């Protein structure tokens, strides 16, 4: 999934930070609030739901706009994500066009217009 985001970022002018695990992302998220957070569900060591609950307890991320992306295209996962207040639950695979649309929809600018 990382490669899709990196290609979209390369064709656009938004700033992308990609991390391979929840713990790795804390180097950034401890001090920064992204305009949009794309969060996987199945990650090494910690699942996306647990991680988002932890983030939500921090003032900085109490309402960070979040889109969950997962191969787990199950109704129970969609409900779990919704209960955590995510903007959308998107099932993998997701195209570059769909990524651009989500950014445009929730960040408010056309990421391909550089």
């Amino acid at each position, binding site marked *: 999934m990382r*490669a*899709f985001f990196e290609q979209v970022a390369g064709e656009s002018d938004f700033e992308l930070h990609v991390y391979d695990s929840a713990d790795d992302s804390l180097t950034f998220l401890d001090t920064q609030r992204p305009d949009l957070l794309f969060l996987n569900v199945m990650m090494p060591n910690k699942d996306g739901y*647990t991680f988002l609950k932890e983030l939500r307890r921090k003032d900085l991320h109490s309402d960070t706009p979040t889109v969950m992306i997962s191969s787990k295209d199950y109704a129970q*996962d969609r409900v779990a994500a919704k209960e955590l207040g995510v903007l959308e639950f998107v099932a993998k*695979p997701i*195209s570059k066009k769909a990524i651009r649309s989500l950014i445009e929809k929730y960040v408010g600018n056309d990421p391909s217009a550089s």
Partner: protein
Amino acid sequence: MSDSYLRFWGVRGSYAAPHETHLGVGGNTSCVEIRSGDHLLVCDGGTGIISLGEELMAQSDIAELMVVFTHYHWDHICGLPFFQPAFSPAWKIKFFGPGDTAADIEKRLSDQMKAPYFPVETETWMADIEYIEPEAHGLSHGPINITEFNVHHPGVTYGYSMDVAGKRVVYVSDNEVQFLKTSIDKRIHEFDEDEHELLERMVSEQRSAELAAIENVDILVHDAQYTPHDYSKKRGWGHSCYVDTVNLAIDAGVGCLYLYHHDPTYNDDQVAAIHRDCLQIIRERNADMECHVGREGLKVEL
């Protein structure tokens, strides 16, 4: 006989299947005992845990155990209300499973025993019960080190990797292998040509993650619920086709695979046919992995 072993008490998925035609494999739902000397670890509390409880009440060597739950779907917890050691003050029992806190775990296990679903609640348990607070550094029960990891099944579901008697045993009762790959196959028309390579990388990353948890383990107990025909109808139910399971285990360099979480509609002959096909796949791939049917009552020395 070694004092370390694995024993299957329940091997069915979804619901119990106590039919005469199924009893060679067994009709009880998920429950596996891992024993290392006097230390007893139980994976899941399906109906198989009821018989385990009866056996434990008939002995006096041990009075303490830990139960780890992969998740809280009924076939994995429905034996717990009938687990006799929980009702005995002589026993100390620890419970662990998915949840943010020990209170979460307690709630998820105890809710099934509340009215109107059950006549007595967990408050009637007289054993010394402890719900284990999730910690980042993993679990242990005596000499058994336990690590949980996320698997592909609706909601948060764990697999467990356990180091026992110098061997690594991995228990993955419910896991839909290769789900992303089949999702891509179904939706490939949505992607541009230049995205196909990216999709292949995505599948490769997912495969690496699937393999990482079971790489070179000595014993793997894994979901192999469906035939290819039935999987085509039940894709998205969170379970694997046995063909995907056996290929995953071969790719991961597993020493010995136990097919598990058998579909309750399959009789002994159908499970035997699945086993034969798995052995054929292993031969065709020139692999040297052992493969057996997880069978109720089967005891595997560690």
